């Protein structure tokens, strides 16, 4: 039995009918953020309370994905009332269920006209908080797998690639390479065996976009990979996901199984000759495996050490075959592009950066969580409107984008549009979307040291500039933060940054000096204060206190 579009529509209709037979749908966020605040207990108590009040026929509790505002979880959302609650505890269940017919529970109310919600534009996250990640029917009811049907039955692979090219989508993993170009290279490769790899090894310490997408909408990734497979001519795919994300792994496993059972993965998908199969591979805690060649080595069960490129994976990748490697967010953009057309996507964003970008807002900001905004949204809007500003009345100092490969954007650039080029101009990068907000309590030398420690311990050790250079850089930064540095150390620091960036083998080493370079560019005075006056303005580095005490 092969799946047809009628089957899909029937599943969608049944699902919608069933849902609409309930007067109230109570959506509980069960992504990792809310789960760790006890949302599973909240869900259980809501179900219990519904039973107790005998409202099983009127209310249905649904386990949905990330609602975005992780800072005030557990979050629930009641449709069709358009009421959202924050910080819900299991003991709140009677009040919530009791209030369904009356006024909302004011003490838990989360205003839905909050700029955090109203200023966003959701494409990648459009299903997050709406579909139930553990049920394929729920994804289908939201239009899921229609794009795959459309691609397989109504488009040639070339047309799919043309759409992706026309959309202007660029890789969301960090470097911003045009996705259409990458697909074309793999498409053109003359080899029978090809692979599609989804890079879900989200290593940037301060980013959780991919995690949320995988936990909240795993089928979106599967659909995107299948479309990519059809377009480039691959019949097998791998998702390389961090073992540190057990919930994402579990949901992906379940989703792949459901997709196979239904027939959107496997042989003769939608009655076409196209076959596609996806396997999971677990990462094991190595940031360098985000680098394409290291990732391939790791899938092959080897040490995750990068090799020199060329040859690029698009020509010589997994098991020596042409391999398309795209990041989770890139792949999550594919189904909407196919469904609504490349031109629609190209109409969003700026001239060179199309579409939207998901950012993980964290650090010293009121509304920590996951947001999606059109490319080119000013930083100020993200931090102060959507993010709600800096807590405790403190002053904004900088944001760090791109994690250990990126740089900081200081206050004078708050009105800068967030797109690939503007970020590059100020010495930062788009990166995967981690956005760490720092207030005046952050010491920029300490931040640079933090990232250098990260790069040092994540360096694979293969090439000398990265292996020894990052250790030397860390040593100098450690001396500066301890108040033991000399003024010449700044020159050595700059020279080493240049060397490590220019001579390292892979992207990890080549970008490792970026946080130092960018903090030196905007906050050299802090470095100087540490060296000359043994003073850490933010009071983070211990030497400041120690010297004062002895004085």
């Amino acid at each position, binding site marked *: 039995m092969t799946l047809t579009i009628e089957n899909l529509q029937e599943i969608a209709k049944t699902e919608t009918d069933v849902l609409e037979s309930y007067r109230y749908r109570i959506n509980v966020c069960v992504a990792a953020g809310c789960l760790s605040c006890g949302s599973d207990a909240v869900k259980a108590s809501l179900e219990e309370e519904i039973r107790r009040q005998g409202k099983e026929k009127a209310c249905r509790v649904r386990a949905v994905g990330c609602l975005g505002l992780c800072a005030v979880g557990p979050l629930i959302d009641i449709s069709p009332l358009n009421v959202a609650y924050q910080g819900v505890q299991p003991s709140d269940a009677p009040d919530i269920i009791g209030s369904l017919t009356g006024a909302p529970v004011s003490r838990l109310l989360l205003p839905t006209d909050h700029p955090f919600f109203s200023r966003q534009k959701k494409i990648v996250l459009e299903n997050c908080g709406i579909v139930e990640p553990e049920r394929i029917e729920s994804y289908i009811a939201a239009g899921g797998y229609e794009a795959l049907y459309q691609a397989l039955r109504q488009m040639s692979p070339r047309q799919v690639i043309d759409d992706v090219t026309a959309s202007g989508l660029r890789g969301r993993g960090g470097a911003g390479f045009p996705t259409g170009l990458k697909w074309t290279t793999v498409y053109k490769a003359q080899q029978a065996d090809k692979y599609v790899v989804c890079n879900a090894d989200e290593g940037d310490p301060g980013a959780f976009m991919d995690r949320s997408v995988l936990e909240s909408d795993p089928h979106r990734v599967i659909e995107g990979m299948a479309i990519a497979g059809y377009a480039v001519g691959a019949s097998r795919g791998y998702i390389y996901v961090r073992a540190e994300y057990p919930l994402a792994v579990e949901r992906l496993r379940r989703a792949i199984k459901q997709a196979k059972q239904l027939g959107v993965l496997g042989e003769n998908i939608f009655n076409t000759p196209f076959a596609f199969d996806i396997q999971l591979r677990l990462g094991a805690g190595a940031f360098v495996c985000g680098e394409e060649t290291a990732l391939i080595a790791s899938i092959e069960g080897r040490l995750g050490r990068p090799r020199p490129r060329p040859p690029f994976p698009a020509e010589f990748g997994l098991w020596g075959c042409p391999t398309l490697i795209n990041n989770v967010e890139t792949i999550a953009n594919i189904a909407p592009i196919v469904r609504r057309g490349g031109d629609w996507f190209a109409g969003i964003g700026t001239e060179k950066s199309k579409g939207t970008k998901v950012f993980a807002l964290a650090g010293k900001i009121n509304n920590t969580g996951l947001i999606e905004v059109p490319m080119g949204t000013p930083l100020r809007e993200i931090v102060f409107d959507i993010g709600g500003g800096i807590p405790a009345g403190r002053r904004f100092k900088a944001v760090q984008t791109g994690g250990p490969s990126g740089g900081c954007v200081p206050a004078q650039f708050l009105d800068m549009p967030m797109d690939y080029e503007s970020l590059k101009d100020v010495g930062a990068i788009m990166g995967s979307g981690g956005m760490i907000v720092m207030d005046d309590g952050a010491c920029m030398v300490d931040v640079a040291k933090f990232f250098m420690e990260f790069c040092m311990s994540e360096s694979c050790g293969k090439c000398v500039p990265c292996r020894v250079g990052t250790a030397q850089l860390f040593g100098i930064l450690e001396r500066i933060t301890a108040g033991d540095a000399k003024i010449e150390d700044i020159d050595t620091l700059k020279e080493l940054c240049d060397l490590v960036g220019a001579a390292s*083998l892979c992207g990890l080493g080549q970008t490792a000096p970026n946080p130092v370079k960018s903090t030196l560019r905007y906050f050299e005075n802090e470095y100087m204060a540490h060296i000359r006056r043994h003073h850490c303005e933010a009071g983070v580095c211990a030497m400041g206190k120690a010297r004062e005490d002895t004085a």
Partner: protein
Amino acid sequence: MTSNASIPPKPRTDVNPARIYTLRINGREDETILTVARQNGIDIPTLCHLDGLAERGACRLCIVEIQGSPKLYAACVTLVKQDMDVITDSPRIRDYRRKILELIFSERNHVCSVCVVNGNCELQNLAVKLGMTHVRYGYLNLTHAVDASHPRFSLDHNRCVLCLRCIRVCKDIEGAHTWDIAGRGIHARIISDLNQPWGESETCTGCGKCVQVCPTGALSEKGKSVAEMTKRPEFLPYLQMMRKEAEP
């Protein structure tokens, strides 16, 4: 082997032309820059490269510039292309190479005066060749153990530069794969089998190839005193040639 590469001096304007060695390559796209350069008598310093072993592109001493690209390329792993202009030596490259070498010296313990290969050491020769007079970086002083458990050889991790020649020769030529590299980054080090003492290794055949290819005094024969040990890696191309002959 013949080469159809020609070596016209191709001056650049941004650096002192007298100090630049450029290589203009026509035809042949199956060989590395390093191979073609050496065939034409142009010297490019190397450390992890050894004729007869698989390339790694890891020590970065053989970095060269290619006209039209801002990036640096490792000559040992970059294939030549039609009309490629390669700059194998310039003040910028020389400066980088010297700094990379200094980084290697700063990593562990490379005191030549008490080393078995003093006078016969590739690392020492490189320092002379690249005009390294001192190490500008602080010594990291990572101290490692010496493994003298093998009856004939010893391994001094403090002299190791992680070129991984020993691993490659053991895996690809001898076929034992006794050696590999444990850990990563600055804490990476050579291990035998499951991190056992070398002398207790179940897989080591005692062939000594690793000792002969080691560029420094990290792997040495027992009983040799300071400056008494010389390495003979020349057996490698010979082995390769003989194996090729033996193929049906």
